[in-house]
């Protein structure tokens, strides 16, 4: 079991959820209207006058074998529209109830 944290520009929402569903990963936690800024090139998403866009994020717990597929799809999506901003971070899950 791996956790994938996907912060993205709000307008990616439907596509990200679709990627997860295609990979049989139904469960996720969705956070809307969050702020963030990329490390290098990314524009800030602050929801302010100067930087009006906002991010959302999804944390999804997926089966190990799905992770690569999901990351590949997300990378493809990001490359299509680089300016919007989309990332995915993966780490291990120790336990769950």
């Amino acid at each position: 079991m791996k956790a994938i944290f996907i912060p993205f520009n709000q307008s990616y929402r439907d596509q990200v959820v679709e990627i997860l569903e295609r990979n049989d990963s139904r469960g996720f936690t969705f956070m809307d209207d969050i702020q963030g800024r990329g490390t290098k090139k990314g524009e800030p998403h602050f929801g302010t006058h100067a930087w009006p866009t906002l991010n959302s994020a999804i944390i999804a717990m997926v089966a190990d074998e799905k992770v690569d597929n999901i990351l590949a799809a997300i990378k493809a999506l990001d490359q299509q529209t680089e300016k919007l901003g989309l990332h995915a971070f993966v780490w291990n899950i120790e336990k769950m109830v």
Partner: protein
Amino acid sequence: MSLYKTAVEKPVSTILVFIGLVVMGLFSYTKLAVDLMPEIETTQISIITAYPGASASDVETNVTRLIEDVLNQVENLKKIESQSKENMSLVTIELEYGSDIDVATNDVRDKLDMIVSQLPDEVESPTIFKFSSDMIPVVIYSATATESVNSLYKILDEKVANPLNRVSGVGTVSVTGAPKRQVQVNVNPAKIEAYNIGIEQIANVIRQENLNTPAGSFDIGTQTYALRIEGEFKESSELNDIVVGSYEGKTIFLKDVATVFDHIEERVQESYTNGVKGATIVVQKQAGANTVSIANKVTAMMPELQKTLPPDVKLVQVMDTSEFIDSSINSLIDTVLYAFVFVVLVVFLFLGRWRATFIIILTIPISLISAFAYLAITGGTLNIISLSSLSIAIGMVVDDAIVVLENVTTHIEKGSAPKSAAIYATNEVAISVVASTLTIVAVFLPLTMVTGLAGVLFKQLGWMVTIVCTVSTIVALTLTPMLCSQMLRMHTSKNKWFDLLYGPVARALDALDRGYASLLNLSVRHRFISSFVCFIIFVLSLVVTKNLKTEFMPASDNDRIGITIEMPAGIRMEIARDKAAEITSLFKEKYPEIDVTSYSVGQADSENAYASMQNNGTGLVTFTITCHPLAARTRTIFEISDLMREDLALMPELYKVKVQPGGSGGGPASSSGSFVDVEIFGHDLATTDRVAAELKKRLEENIKGLTDVQIDRKDYQAEYQVELDREKLALHELSSATVSSFVRNRINGAFASKFREDGDEYDIVVRYDLAHRQSIEDIENIIVYTNKGKGIRLRELGKVVEKFSLPQIDRQDRERIVRVSGLVSGAALSEVVAGVNEQIALAEIPSEIGTKIGGSFVDQQESFGELAILMILLVLLVYIVMATQFESFTYPFIIMFSIPFGFGGVLLALWIVGKPLDLMAMIGMVTLIGIVVKNGIVLIDYITLNRERGMSIRKAVVDGGKSRLRPVLMTTLTTVLGMIPMAVGTGQGSEMWQTMGIAIIGGLTFSTIITLILVPALYSIFGRNGVVRQRKKFAKKFANVGK
């Protein structure tokens, strides 16, 4: 869930809601009535009081002054005017605009009740009359007849006036110029003197004989019968056989002493149409009724009515006020449509995409049509103001949609899916879209609270623009994102042909962007110099236009010319009539533009309210000339009027001439041109006469732009007065009152009774035969009977002397007044007023005489004064809205600089095209306050955004300016081009809105050009100061750190 999210996610509901709105708007449109101006409330109340037999000065002292004194306490009183004429007092009070006329009328009635007991006994009780500009006739027909001319009144009254009166909305239908039937008993004085019978006795006998009396009911057997005595005459010839008295045992019949004529009235007003004698039928509407619909109904009825008339009676339309309204409104609707086309072109030019253009253009019909629903709900009409508002709004309603669409496009280009781009992009700009609409509302909503005449005009403008802009914002936040999500594509397929055509445009726009960026760079680098240059340009614009003329309302060509000519006082009606016929045939020959000429001449019947409110008299002729429509002639009514004035000046027998292009009458907003009145106040008639004559001479000689200078005081009229010797009266136990009534009954006639036939009533009047009332001797020979029945000739009681007296005394605000008034022609009002003031200063005026300038000038001063206060208020409001939006005191201050440049541009534009600054141009200036700041807001908003994103001041300014140039140009161009059809103004009535179009175009263009340079320059000045201040603060705070 936000508004736009719902809209994007529910496209069907969104579309249907707006379709519903449009359908409702279109439905309302079909219900809307057409009128020239918004309804102007009545603010005048007239009180007419008859005082039979009193002279003008008696009426003034005994009636008018009492009424004036008591009415002076009415609330919201603006002005009291009065006319004291022979037999009649007319007091008119004018209330402040917006006062409740019904409350005031009740108040007036109460106040009058208080003084009724103080009035002389002979005074009839005062009648209160709500007068308004609605009293201007809607249609005037003229009826001509040959054989039926003597029965014309009855025919017209029954067959035309009565059916027309039943048309809903028609106030009164009055028939003027048709003589009424009257039964005249012309008595031979020699005979009645011989029989010792007085006129009073004859009148009394007739009254007693002409009676039907119910005598009660009585029973015969089982039945009850009514008992009646029918004495009423069945034929007028029956009068001949009534017994008026007996002399030495012989019965004297009426035919022995008098001849009975069943004929027409003696002194009447006559009217002529195209030289043929006839009658005038004047249709007036009820207050608040719609002119156009009444005129249409009346016109539609006419062919039917014509069929019921005898074949020799012909009806001709002399005037139809609705024609002018109709054609004006139609030409204004055309300008709105042209404006729409221009806006579509501009939007397409800048966007270069059909779909995007379609989405934006859709906002226009939706928001404009919704305004019709507002008009229908509030009972408004399609008029010049409401349609002009649409014309102003048409360029502004697309602004919000453009901002939204642009941002959605940016998001899509970055890679968002259209649907999410629509939601998030709208979310980003929603606040600034709402804020910019608030700025507009801050200007237009306060307009609805203006009072006075300007308030009437502004109320609809304010509401219309507020509603249209609010709806457009709602559309921009719902329908526009929804359509964007459905119609915009991530990758637009490029068409080769399209590229070929649009390519040059796109390149030109890019070049413009670059050119502006380098200009901006220059101006920011030399920010102080460029600010100074802008300031100099502003001062220059004011200096150049220093002598700009001002005017109240522009005159417009409505095909009508009104002429009043006056022959010397006391001249017989027949002579004036011949002169009028001569003038008619002269004009007919000289001016082929004339369609119908009609005139009326003579003294009006006191029963005819319309005619007696007009100026009338035996030597007075009133012409109404209708020309062919403007399109069918080359000379305007103003040119024709000027020529007519020259023609009439060549006729020395005309004592006073007044030629009024546009026709006479009309409310304050009518198109009858501008008047300047010099009001001279003073009690002594001789002194004020002298001052008035001197001023008239001075104005005529020294002021070029003033024509038809006239003194409104009537001429002293020669009259005969019977001076009674009170001692002799006392000797015979007679009073002045008895004697005067004897004289009156013999000359004017004693009203005996009414002769009834076929349900109509005709007066029976007994008086001396015409042959016996033609000389002073006839009057001196009148026999007055004492209480003892002894007859005494009038010459034994006093003498008949010739005297001069004033037939009418005018007062204003409880002082006697003479007005010297002139029509402004060929010069602006302000110029003429300055000249008049100069002449007043030069004239020799005694200290007890007061002078004041009135006429259109006063209206202009009042309205302009209110507008000036209004503008200050609006500027303040706009500042507040902007300051809250930017959360800053400085930025809105910078943006406000575009307002004076806007005004400078208005003056400059008017100066270039040679138009005066009038009320409509002022309305344009007021609306400019809201429009010009928008450019500044867009610029400053983006510059601060760049600053927040960390750019240096100069880069923020240049980048921001470059990226906002297109939106600024686009919104400016849509508004400017939307106004061009108005400013060019070729249709009928376009004179009225032309200046508004010119003002907005000039002001907006000038201020936009200046704003694009000045606002960035000022921003860099203020911005730098701010940065420097912050650095100093920082340095002070951390001065010791690091040492």
